[in-house]
């Protein structure tokens, strides 16, 4: 515990007043390991309607440089399954699978 605490900045090195001085720093925090079910995105089936993008609570639907749906950000996806649930039934481009099937692979 002491060694962990020592790696963190001391009080003299923190910004004033508890400020976080940069925007969006939570991106560096991994929430993907919360996941018990993994969404698998099928590029072939995807019609790029972006409904999954709108409904993903964890900003984990990746978009390509051209702005097209481009898979899942597994570093942050918590596996809630809203994307699979909301993907139009006729399209069915995202399906949920237990993490145990992947044996820890990324």
């Amino acid at each position: 515990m002491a060694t962990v605490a020592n790696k963190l900045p001391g009080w003299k090195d923190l910004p004033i007043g508890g400020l976080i001085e940069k925007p969006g720093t939570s991106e560096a925090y991994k929430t993907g390991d919360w996941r018990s079910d993994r969404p698998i995105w099928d590029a072939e089936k995807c019609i790029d309607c972006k409904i999954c993008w709108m409904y993903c609570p964890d900003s984990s639907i990746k978009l390509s440089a051209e702005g097209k749906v481009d898979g899942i950000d597994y570093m942050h996806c918590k596996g809630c399954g809203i994307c699979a649930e909301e993907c139009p039934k006729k399209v069915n481009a995202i399906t949920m699978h237990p993490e145990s099937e992947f044996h820890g692979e990324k």
Partner: protein
Amino acid sequence: MAITKDRIALTGNEAIALAMKQINPDVCAAYPITPATEIMQIFASYVADGAVDTELVAVESEHSAMSATIGACAAGARSMTATSSQGLALMWEMLYIAAGLRLPIVMPMVNRALSAPINIHCDHSDSMGARDSGWIQINSENSQEAYDNLIQAMRISEHPDVLLPSMVTFDGFIISHCMEPVETYSNEAIQEFIGAYKAPYALLDIDNPITVGAIDFHDFYFEHRRALAEPMLNTVIPVVEEIGREFGKKFGRTYELFETYKLDDAEVAIVVLGSTAGTAKVVIDELRAKGVKAGMLKIRLYRPFPYAQVAEVLKNVKAVAVLDRSDGLAGFGGPVFGEIRSALYDLPKRPITTNYVYGLGGRDVTLAHIASVYNDLLAIVSEGAPQNLVNYLGVRE
């Protein structure tokens, strides 16, 4: 360069409202409470007449007054509000947050008793309740000091080595509503003294988005609170001294951490805050005329408390009576008593101390009351110990 001064008759509230006008803050929140109401009332008329640039936010409670002031200050604006008593009590939660966020808010605070029973008159229980909130507390004896202290508080709070909120206190009705001559200075001289506002950070800097008021777990909270303690431990006192001297050079009245009155050779002394100091000075003069070596210490800076400096000026006194205009309800007298005892503890030869809780709810403090305290002190000196450690002065048994 000579400073233009006007000597005019003002009540404490009028003097403070005038100082606020001359400070010309960007934002002020206002909510009425006796006996501080007039401050924002007068200030509102300045706003209505276009005499200031201030955006006045007439809020629906003191909690919102401090919340809006915090929002405005965090946005990057010089921000003020004023209050008293129950109003300060309702702000309680936000006082800590203003300090924790390191916002240099300056607030006139008119001392009034706390309920129950409800009472609109002076005692210090309101500001004493907030003494450990992270606010700098500067006490004023009279309207002149309130006016001068408010101007200095801007510099103190906004000093880059400080960045803490300040409350400038003065006694309700006794000072807030009492008209006396006050030397005022020109707007230009005050503006020159306080300087342009430089915000410690600004939400309105949209190109550099910051998050203010984040949550800390056990891994950072302690470090943030330690950082908050630093100015109170080390920087506020020298800054207050430096600005007091600079103020003296510019305006002719030098301010220190406290005022001593005939204390150098005093054998018996009292410690007071606020308007009672004026009464005490008269008693001391009378006692001195009779050959009694009486003196006084009037605390100006109460937070942070100048422990070492207080010990230094009281070290040769034989007996000290601490006058508390609020009761600590701690079973050990008032809060100032605790401070003074603590300050004196490390002296090789400590003065004998005793405590008088007095003047609660605006109870009048007469010359006779103060004289009786000195009489007690003389008895303590000859007997070697006080009869009672904690005394109630001026209450009916």
